[in-house]
Protein backbone atom coordinates (compact mmCIF):
# COMPACT_ATOMS: atom_id res chain seq x y z
CA UNK A 1 0.00 0.00 0.00
CA UNK A 2 1.35 3.44 -0.92
CA UNK A 3 2.64 5.45 2.01
CA UNK A 4 0.23 8.36 1.28
CA UNK A 5 -2.72 6.01 1.44
CA UNK A 6 -1.45 4.46 4.66
CA UNK A 7 -0.88 7.92 6.14
CA UNK A 8 -4.40 8.89 5.10
CA UNK A 9 -5.93 5.73 6.57
CA UNK A 10 -4.11 6.38 9.85
CA UNK A 11 -5.52 9.91 9.96
CA UNK A 12 -9.02 8.69 9.19
CA UNK A 13 -8.77 5.95 11.79
CA UNK A 14 -7.93 8.64 14.35
CA UNK A 15 -10.89 10.79 13.31
CA UNK A 16 -13.46 8.18 12.32
CA UNK A 17 -15.47 8.95 15.45
CA UNK A 18 -16.18 12.50 14.37
CA UNK A 19 -17.05 11.43 10.81
CA UNK A 20 -19.47 8.94 12.31
CA UNK A 21 -21.01 11.63 14.51
CA UNK A 22 -21.51 13.89 11.49
CA UNK A 23 -23.11 10.98 9.64
CA UNK A 24 -25.44 10.41 12.59
CA UNK A 25 -26.37 14.09 12.70
CA UNK A 26 -27.30 14.14 9.04
CA UNK A 27 -28.89 10.75 8.48
CA UNK A 28 -31.49 9.04 10.64
CA UNK A 29 -31.39 5.73 8.80
CA UNK A 30 -28.53 3.31 9.41
CA UNK A 31 -27.89 2.47 5.76
CA UNK A 32 -27.93 6.14 4.74
CA UNK A 33 -25.61 6.89 7.62
CA UNK A 34 -23.14 4.22 6.53
CA UNK A 35 -23.35 5.52 2.95
CA UNK A 36 -22.62 9.05 4.14
CA UNK A 37 -19.69 7.80 6.21
CA UNK A 38 -18.27 6.06 3.13
CA UNK A 39 -18.92 9.10 0.94
CA UNK A 40 -17.14 11.42 3.37
CA UNK A 41 -14.18 9.06 3.57
CA UNK A 42 -14.03 8.90 -0.22
CA UNK A 43 -14.31 12.69 -0.64
CA UNK A 44 -11.65 13.28 1.98
CA UNK A 45 -9.38 10.78 0.22
CA UNK A 46 -9.97 12.51 -3.14
CA UNK A 47 -9.19 15.90 -1.59
CA UNK A 48 -6.27 14.64 0.52
CA UNK A 49 -3.55 15.65 -1.99
CA UNK A 50 -4.79 19.26 -1.55
CA UNK A 51 -4.26 19.20 2.20
CA UNK A 52 -1.28 21.47 2.75
CA UNK A 53 -1.13 21.35 6.50
CA UNK A 54 -1.96 25.05 6.84
CA UNK A 55 -4.63 24.13 9.36
CA UNK A 56 -5.02 21.11 11.59
CA UNK A 57 -6.06 17.98 9.78
CA UNK A 58 -9.19 17.73 11.93
CA UNK A 59 -10.32 21.28 11.02
CA UNK A 60 -9.78 20.56 7.34
CA UNK A 61 -11.55 17.23 7.67
CA UNK A 62 -14.59 18.84 9.38
CA UNK A 63 -14.99 21.21 6.46
CA UNK A 64 -14.81 18.50 3.79
CA UNK A 65 -17.07 16.22 5.83
CA UNK A 66 -19.72 18.89 6.39
CA UNK A 67 -19.57 20.11 2.79
CA UNK A 68 -20.25 16.54 1.72
CA UNK A 69 -22.96 15.92 4.32
CA UNK A 70 -24.83 19.15 3.49
CA UNK A 71 -25.45 18.12 -0.13
CA UNK A 72 -25.72 14.36 0.49
CA UNK A 73 -28.91 12.80 -0.87
CA UNK A 74 -30.70 10.02 0.94
CA UNK A 75 -31.22 6.75 -0.85
CA UNK A 76 -34.35 7.21 -2.96
CA UNK A 77 -35.26 3.55 -2.78
CA UNK A 78 -36.21 4.00 0.83
CA UNK A 79 -36.59 1.10 3.15
CA UNK A 80 -40.18 1.88 4.08
CA UNK A 81 -40.27 -0.35 7.13
CA UNK A 82 -37.65 1.76 8.87
CA UNK A 83 -39.07 4.91 10.35
CA UNK A 84 -37.16 7.97 11.42
CA UNK A 85 -38.44 7.38 14.93
CA UNK A 86 -36.66 4.10 15.17
CA UNK A 87 -33.70 4.73 17.38
CA UNK A 88 -32.92 1.21 18.46
CA UNK A 89 -29.88 1.37 16.24
CA UNK A 90 -28.26 3.97 18.43
CA UNK A 91 -28.05 1.51 21.26
CA UNK A 92 -24.63 1.45 22.72
CA UNK A 93 -22.84 -1.73 21.85
CA UNK A 94 -21.36 -2.25 25.29
CA UNK A 95 -22.80 -5.07 27.27
CA UNK A 96 -23.57 -2.81 30.19
CA UNK A 97 -24.99 0.14 28.43
CA UNK A 98 -26.15 3.17 30.28
CA UNK A 99 -29.88 3.67 29.68
CA UNK A 100 -29.90 7.30 30.65
CA UNK A 101 -26.96 8.08 28.38
CA UNK A 102 -28.59 6.19 25.55
CA UNK A 103 -31.87 8.06 26.00
CA UNK A 104 -30.07 11.37 25.98
CA UNK A 105 -28.15 10.48 22.83
CA UNK A 106 -31.36 9.37 21.12
CA UNK A 107 -33.12 12.57 22.19
CA UNK A 108 -30.22 14.69 20.97
CA UNK A 109 -29.94 13.08 17.54
CA UNK A 110 -33.71 12.97 17.11
CA UNK A 111 -33.87 16.72 17.75
CA UNK A 112 -30.90 17.46 15.47
CA UNK A 113 -32.47 15.46 12.62
CA UNK A 114 -35.33 17.96 12.58
CA UNK A 115 -32.99 20.82 11.66
CA UNK A 116 -32.08 21.69 8.09
CA UNK A 117 -28.62 20.86 6.68
CA UNK A 118 -27.17 24.32 7.29
CA UNK A 119 -28.42 24.54 10.89
CA UNK A 120 -26.95 21.11 11.55
CA UNK A 121 -23.54 22.41 10.46
CA UNK A 122 -23.79 25.34 12.90
CA UNK A 123 -24.87 23.04 15.71
CA UNK A 124 -21.95 20.75 14.92
CA UNK A 125 -19.46 23.60 15.29
CA UNK A 126 -21.19 24.70 18.48
CA UNK A 127 -20.92 21.20 19.93
CA UNK A 128 -17.27 21.00 18.90
CA UNK A 129 -16.59 24.33 20.65
CA UNK A 130 -15.51 26.29 17.60
CA UNK A 131 -15.27 30.05 18.06
CA UNK A 132 -17.30 32.46 15.93
CA UNK A 133 -14.16 33.38 14.02
CA UNK A 134 -13.32 29.75 13.29
CA UNK A 135 -16.87 29.00 12.15
CA UNK A 136 -16.82 32.06 9.90
CA UNK A 137 -13.57 30.80 8.39
CA UNK A 138 -14.99 27.31 7.84
CA UNK A 139 -18.34 28.42 6.46
CA UNK A 140 -17.07 31.34 4.37
CA UNK A 141 -19.42 33.92 5.91
CA UNK A 142 -18.92 36.89 8.23
CA UNK A 143 -18.69 36.54 12.02
CA UNK A 144 -21.84 38.65 12.36
CA UNK A 145 -23.69 36.30 10.08
CA UNK A 146 -22.37 33.34 12.10
CA UNK A 147 -23.77 34.87 15.31
CA UNK A 148 -27.20 35.38 13.74
CA UNK A 149 -27.34 31.91 12.23
CA UNK A 150 -25.94 30.22 15.31
CA UNK A 151 -28.58 31.85 17.50
CA UNK A 152 -31.27 30.90 15.05
CA UNK A 153 -30.10 27.28 14.89
CA UNK A 154 -29.79 27.04 18.68
CA UNK A 155 -33.25 28.55 19.17
CA UNK A 156 -34.74 26.09 16.73
CA UNK A 157 -33.04 23.24 18.55
CA UNK A 158 -34.22 24.56 21.91
CA UNK A 159 -37.80 24.67 20.64
CA UNK A 160 -37.55 21.15 19.29
CA UNK A 161 -36.04 19.86 22.52
CA UNK A 162 -38.72 21.53 24.64
CA UNK A 163 -41.55 20.34 22.40
CA UNK A 164 -40.33 16.76 22.18
CA UNK A 165 -41.30 14.46 25.00
CA UNK A 166 -39.12 11.47 25.53
Amino acid at each position, binding site marked *: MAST*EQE*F*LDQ*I*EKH*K*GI*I*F*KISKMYMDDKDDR*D*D*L*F*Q*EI*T*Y*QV*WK*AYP*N*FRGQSEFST*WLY*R*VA*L*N*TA*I*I*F*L*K*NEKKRSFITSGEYEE*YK*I*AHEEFDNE*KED*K*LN*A*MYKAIHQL*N*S*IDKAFIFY*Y*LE*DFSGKEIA*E*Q*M*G*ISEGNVRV*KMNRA*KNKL*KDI*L*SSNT*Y
Partner: protein
Amino acid sequence: MNIDELKNTWNQDDSYEETPEINTEQKNKINLPLEKIRKNMRMEFWSTVGIFIFAFGVIALSPGPFKFKFYITILIASMIFVTFFFFSQFFKLYKNMSNPVMKTYDSLKDLLYQFQLNKQYYLSFYLSFVPFLVCEIIIVLEFIPRPVPLSNLNIASVLIGTMVITMPLLFVLGKWWFNKFYGKYILQIENLVSELKK
Protein backbone atom coordinates in the same frame (compact mmCIF):
# COMPACT_ATOMS: atom_id res chain seq x y z
CA MET B 1 -32.89 17.92 28.13
CA ASN B 2 -31.93 21.52 27.46
CA ILE B 3 -29.42 22.90 24.98
CA ASP B 4 -26.67 23.37 27.57
CA GLU B 5 -26.66 19.67 28.31
CA LEU B 6 -26.16 18.88 24.64
CA LYS B 7 -22.39 19.37 24.72
CA ASN B 8 -22.04 16.82 27.52
CA THR B 9 -24.26 14.37 25.68
CA TRP B 10 -22.32 14.99 22.46
CA ASN B 11 -19.01 14.33 24.17
CA GLN B 12 -20.40 11.16 25.72
CA ASP B 13 -21.19 9.67 22.33
CA ASP B 14 -18.43 7.14 21.94
CA SER B 15 -20.22 4.54 19.84
CA TYR B 16 -17.33 4.44 17.40
CA GLU B 17 -17.18 0.70 17.18
CA GLU B 18 -20.26 0.91 14.95
CA THR B 19 -18.35 2.76 12.24
CA PRO B 20 -18.38 1.08 8.82
CA GLU B 21 -15.17 -0.23 7.34
CA ILE B 22 -12.90 2.51 6.02
CA ASN B 23 -11.81 2.27 2.42
CA THR B 24 -10.69 4.65 -0.27
CA GLU B 25 -12.67 3.04 -3.10
CA GLN B 26 -15.71 4.76 -4.51
CA LYS B 27 -18.84 2.77 -3.75
CA ASN B 28 -21.49 2.00 -6.33
CA LYS B 29 -24.23 4.01 -4.67
CA ILE B 30 -24.75 7.56 -5.90
CA ASN B 31 -25.66 10.09 -3.24
CA LEU B 32 -24.29 13.42 -4.38
CA PRO B 33 -26.25 15.78 -6.68
CA LEU B 34 -23.31 16.13 -9.05
CA GLU B 35 -23.02 12.38 -9.45
CA LYS B 36 -26.78 12.01 -9.96
CA ILE B 37 -26.68 14.65 -12.70
CA ARG B 38 -23.62 13.03 -14.25
CA LYS B 39 -25.37 9.64 -14.23
CA ASN B 40 -28.55 11.07 -15.80
CA MET B 41 -26.48 12.89 -18.41
CA ARG B 42 -24.70 9.66 -19.29
CA MET B 43 -28.06 7.92 -19.58
CA GLU B 44 -29.31 10.70 -21.85
CA PHE B 45 -26.17 10.50 -23.98
CA TRP B 46 -26.53 6.78 -24.61
CA SER B 47 -30.29 7.14 -25.27
CA THR B 48 -29.49 9.81 -27.86
CA VAL B 49 -26.92 7.52 -29.47
CA GLY B 50 -29.62 4.81 -29.58
CA ILE B 51 -32.09 7.21 -31.20
CA PHE B 52 -29.56 8.17 -33.88
CA ILE B 53 -28.79 4.53 -34.68
CA PHE B 54 -32.52 3.86 -34.90
CA ALA B 55 -33.00 6.89 -37.18
CA PHE B 56 -30.22 5.73 -39.52
CA GLY B 57 -31.82 2.28 -39.62
CA VAL B 58 -35.21 3.73 -40.52
CA ILE B 59 -33.69 5.85 -43.32
CA ALA B 60 -31.74 2.92 -44.72
CA LEU B 61 -34.88 0.79 -44.87
CA SER B 62 -37.30 3.47 -46.07
CA PRO B 63 -38.29 3.35 -49.76
CA GLY B 64 -37.99 7.16 -50.30
CA PRO B 65 -36.05 8.76 -53.16
CA PHE B 66 -32.27 9.14 -52.94
CA LYS B 67 -32.38 12.92 -52.40
CA PHE B 68 -34.80 12.56 -49.50
CA LYS B 69 -32.68 9.90 -47.79
CA PHE B 70 -29.49 11.81 -48.47
CA TYR B 71 -30.76 15.09 -47.05
CA ILE B 72 -32.16 13.43 -43.92
CA THR B 73 -28.90 11.52 -43.44
CA ILE B 74 -26.90 14.76 -43.71
CA LEU B 75 -29.22 16.42 -41.21
CA ILE B 76 -28.92 13.59 -38.71
CA ALA B 77 -25.15 13.52 -39.14
CA SER B 78 -25.11 17.26 -38.32
CA MET B 79 -27.28 16.60 -35.28
CA ILE B 80 -24.78 13.96 -34.15
CA PHE B 81 -21.98 16.48 -34.51
CA VAL B 82 -23.89 19.03 -32.38
CA THR B 83 -24.80 16.34 -29.81
CA PHE B 84 -21.20 15.20 -29.41
CA PHE B 85 -20.02 18.77 -29.08
CA PHE B 86 -22.48 19.54 -26.26
CA PHE B 87 -22.00 16.27 -24.40
CA SER B 88 -18.22 16.68 -24.55
CA GLN B 89 -18.74 20.11 -22.95
CA PHE B 90 -21.02 18.64 -20.27
CA PHE B 91 -18.56 15.93 -19.35
CA LYS B 92 -15.62 18.34 -19.36
CA LEU B 93 -17.59 20.56 -17.00
CA TYR B 94 -18.30 17.69 -14.61
CA LYS B 95 -14.66 16.78 -14.48
CA ASN B 96 -13.83 20.20 -13.07
CA MET B 97 -16.78 20.41 -10.74
CA SER B 98 -17.15 19.99 -7.01
CA ASN B 99 -14.48 21.01 -4.61
CA PRO B 100 -15.40 20.08 -1.04
CA VAL B 101 -12.19 21.64 0.29
CA MET B 102 -13.48 25.17 -0.22
CA LYS B 103 -15.28 27.10 2.51
CA THR B 104 -18.85 25.86 2.71
CA TYR B 105 -20.47 28.94 1.18
CA ASP B 106 -17.85 29.19 -1.58
CA SER B 107 -18.14 25.49 -2.30
CA LEU B 108 -21.94 25.70 -2.64
CA LYS B 109 -21.73 28.87 -4.74
CA ASP B 110 -19.15 27.27 -7.01
CA LEU B 111 -21.28 24.15 -7.45
CA LEU B 112 -24.35 26.27 -8.16
CA TYR B 113 -22.47 28.38 -10.68
CA GLN B 114 -21.30 25.24 -12.49
CA PHE B 115 -24.82 23.80 -12.45
CA GLN B 116 -26.22 27.02 -13.88
CA LEU B 117 -23.59 27.02 -16.57
CA ASN B 118 -24.55 23.46 -17.33
CA LYS B 119 -28.21 24.52 -17.50
CA GLN B 120 -27.35 27.15 -20.10
CA TYR B 121 -25.39 24.59 -22.13
CA TYR B 122 -28.36 22.26 -21.91
CA LEU B 123 -30.79 24.96 -23.03
CA SER B 124 -28.54 25.79 -26.00
CA PHE B 125 -28.28 22.10 -26.82
CA TYR B 126 -32.04 21.75 -26.75
CA LEU B 127 -32.62 24.89 -28.83
CA SER B 128 -30.02 23.87 -31.40
CA PHE B 129 -32.34 21.04 -32.44
CA VAL B 130 -35.14 23.39 -33.49
CA PRO B 131 -33.69 24.33 -36.90
CA PHE B 132 -32.93 20.66 -37.58
CA LEU B 133 -36.51 19.70 -36.84
CA VAL B 134 -37.84 22.49 -39.05
CA CYS B 135 -35.56 21.35 -41.88
CA GLU B 136 -36.77 17.78 -41.45
CA ILE B 137 -40.39 18.88 -41.69
CA ILE B 138 -39.59 20.85 -44.86
CA ILE B 139 -37.79 17.86 -46.41
CA VAL B 140 -40.70 15.57 -45.58
CA LEU B 141 -43.17 18.07 -47.09
CA GLU B 142 -41.06 18.40 -50.23
CA PHE B 143 -40.17 14.81 -50.91
CA ILE B 144 -42.98 12.59 -49.69
CA PRO B 145 -45.04 11.90 -52.81
CA ARG B 146 -48.76 12.73 -52.57
CA PRO B 147 -51.65 11.90 -54.94
CA VAL B 148 -52.50 15.64 -55.10
CA PRO B 149 -49.56 18.04 -54.69
CA LEU B 150 -49.88 20.51 -51.80
CA SER B 151 -50.60 24.11 -52.69
CA ASN B 152 -48.37 26.88 -51.34
CA LEU B 153 -51.07 27.78 -48.85
CA ASN B 154 -51.28 24.16 -47.69
CA ILE B 155 -47.51 23.91 -47.27
CA ALA B 156 -47.43 27.15 -45.28
CA SER B 157 -50.38 26.08 -43.09
CA VAL B 158 -48.94 22.63 -42.37
CA LEU B 159 -45.51 24.04 -41.58
CA ILE B 160 -46.73 26.90 -39.41
CA GLY B 161 -49.37 24.69 -37.75
CA THR B 162 -46.79 22.03 -36.92
CA MET B 163 -44.47 24.66 -35.48
CA VAL B 164 -47.23 26.28 -33.42
CA ILE B 165 -48.20 22.93 -31.91
CA THR B 166 -44.82 21.26 -31.54
CA MET B 167 -42.72 24.16 -30.28
CA PRO B 168 -44.73 24.84 -27.08
CA LEU B 169 -45.05 21.08 -26.62
CA LEU B 170 -41.29 20.67 -26.92
CA PHE B 171 -40.79 23.57 -24.53
CA VAL B 172 -43.05 22.02 -21.86
CA LEU B 173 -41.58 18.57 -22.40
CA GLY B 174 -38.03 19.94 -22.22
CA LYS B 175 -38.78 21.82 -19.04
CA TRP B 176 -40.32 18.73 -17.42
CA TRP B 177 -37.41 16.58 -18.57
CA PHE B 178 -34.82 19.00 -17.27
CA ASN B 179 -36.51 19.39 -13.87
CA LYS B 180 -36.95 15.66 -13.45
CA PHE B 181 -33.38 14.72 -14.24
CA TYR B 182 -31.38 17.83 -13.36
CA GLY B 183 -33.45 20.72 -12.01
CA LYS B 184 -34.31 19.25 -8.61
CA TYR B 185 -30.63 18.89 -7.76
CA ILE B 186 -29.93 22.46 -8.82
CA LEU B 187 -32.86 23.64 -6.69
CA GLN B 188 -31.44 21.80 -3.71
CA ILE B 189 -28.15 23.72 -4.01
CA GLU B 190 -30.00 27.00 -4.66
CA ASN B 191 -31.94 26.51 -1.42
CA LEU B 192 -28.77 25.80 0.53
CA VAL B 193 -27.05 28.91 -0.84
CA SER B 194 -30.03 31.12 -0.01
CA GLU B 195 -30.26 29.55 3.45
CA LEU B 196 -26.64 30.52 4.12
CA LYS B 197 -27.09 33.99 2.60
CA LYS B 198 -30.25 34.91 4.56
